[in-house]
């Protein structure tokens, strides 16, 4: 049972921002896949929803050196976009692993990030890719690096009156490779036990020129594996070195015990899957 609420359709971005500013208690409705569930559970009883679904300003995928994905782009659109596939195939396939096809066709890229569920797929991949969130409010626009967007479980640094407008994904450096892997021991549409987004660039001498690794489902926010990164940067990447570095992630994650495994098991799996992700990126 959903409690009665008022639905206001914003006709433009400016109108949506005005509505947000005038009613800080209002919630924003995009694809609704997370919001409506919380309302059905009775955990959320908003008196007003601002439907931003019609805002053309938040739609579409563009390239201007960087890839810019409008917040209202669905996961399915992002997965199938020729621009996304050309810019970063790993990102396209990451969007293609979100939940099920029905949810991918309904849920939006921006809504998924604003919901800040630590078990979601795009956040760790976008952190690894060094993506940036563009936030818009009546006061103007600001850009937040993806890893600073996530503050806690279901909490972001999107302030009152702010709307996530688009995400910006810089191009991969020449020779860099990216991947996204997730461990699903139960069913294909389950939340991951652990997931890993990684970018690795190995130079002609076989040394790690750059690396970025971020994990999902093993902390309140995506976890950037900085110890793993610094153990590899500048080093010759042999399988043994890769394994040794990957295992350092066990000290960086903070998993919770649930039906997908104990905290100790998830910690161990974080090491195993970080190694697998990085190994897949070796030239």
């Amino acid at each position, binding site marked *: 049972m959903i409690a009665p609420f008022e639905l206001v359709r914003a006709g433009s971005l400016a109108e949506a921002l005005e509505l947000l500013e005038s009613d800080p208690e209002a919630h924003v409705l995009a694809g609704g896949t997370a919001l409506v569930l919380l309302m059905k*559970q*009775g955990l959320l*009883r908003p008196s007003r929803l601002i439907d931003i679904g019609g805002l053309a300003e938040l739609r579409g995928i563009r390239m201007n050196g960087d890839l810019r994905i409008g917040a209202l782009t669905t996961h399915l659109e992002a997965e199938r976009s020729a621009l996304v596939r050309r810019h970063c195939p790993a990102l396209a396939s990451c969007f293609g692993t979100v939940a099920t096809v029905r949810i991918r066709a309904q849920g939006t890229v921006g809504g998924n990030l604003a919901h800040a569920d630590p078990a979601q797929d795009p956040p760790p991949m976008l952190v690894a890719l060094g993506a940036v969130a563009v936030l818009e409010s009546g006061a103007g626009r600001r850009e937040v690096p993806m890893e600073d967007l996530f503050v806690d*479980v*279901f*909490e972001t640094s999107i302030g009152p009156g702010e709307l996530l407008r688009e995400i910006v994904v810089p191009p991969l450096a020449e020779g860099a490779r990216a991947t996204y892997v997730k461990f699903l021991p139960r069913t294909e549409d389950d939340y991951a036990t652990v997931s890993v987004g990684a970018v690795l660039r190995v130079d002609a001498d076989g040394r790690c020129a750059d690396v970025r690794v971020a994990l999902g489902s093993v902390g*309140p926010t995506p976890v950037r594996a900085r110890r793993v990164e610094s153990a590899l940067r500048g080093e010759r990447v042999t399988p043994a070195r890769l394994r040794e570095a990957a295992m350092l992630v066990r000290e960086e994650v903070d998993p919770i015990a*649930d039906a997908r495994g104990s905290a100790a098991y998830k910690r161990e799996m974080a090491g195993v899957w970080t190694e697998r992700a990085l190994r897949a990126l070796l030239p």
Partner: protein
Amino acid sequence: MKLDHSARIDAPVERVWAIVSDVPRAGRLVPGVGPVEPLGADRYRGTLRVQIGPVRLDLAGDIEVTSRDETARTAALRLDAADHRLGGAVRATMRLALTQATPSTTDIRIETDAQVLGRIGELGEPIIRRKADRIVSELIANLAREASS
């Protein structure tokens, strides 16, 4: 759900005890707590607002000091609060113990045993535990600041 917090505070034990044994004053150190009104006989009424992402809990209820030992500097509290809008309640007992570490520092231990009932429980224990843990940690940090200033 059981939580156990310990910390060392840079203030003499008498000073810390004076703050924590004054329930309305100690209440002001808990993030999200509204004014705490005395009801007499060491019972109080107050509110606690907790935000977990988009979900906001407005808990209203009673606090009762069930035991208080001025010499040992220990106390026990019972909290019973409900959110009628969302449908759910929190019942908790807290045991507080202060010990003098040095003449100018105090060890504090807060043991909390909380039950979360009704719809609020749908958030899941790990999330609730993390939030409760943060509230108690902030209480101790605020207490340390107030006692040492």
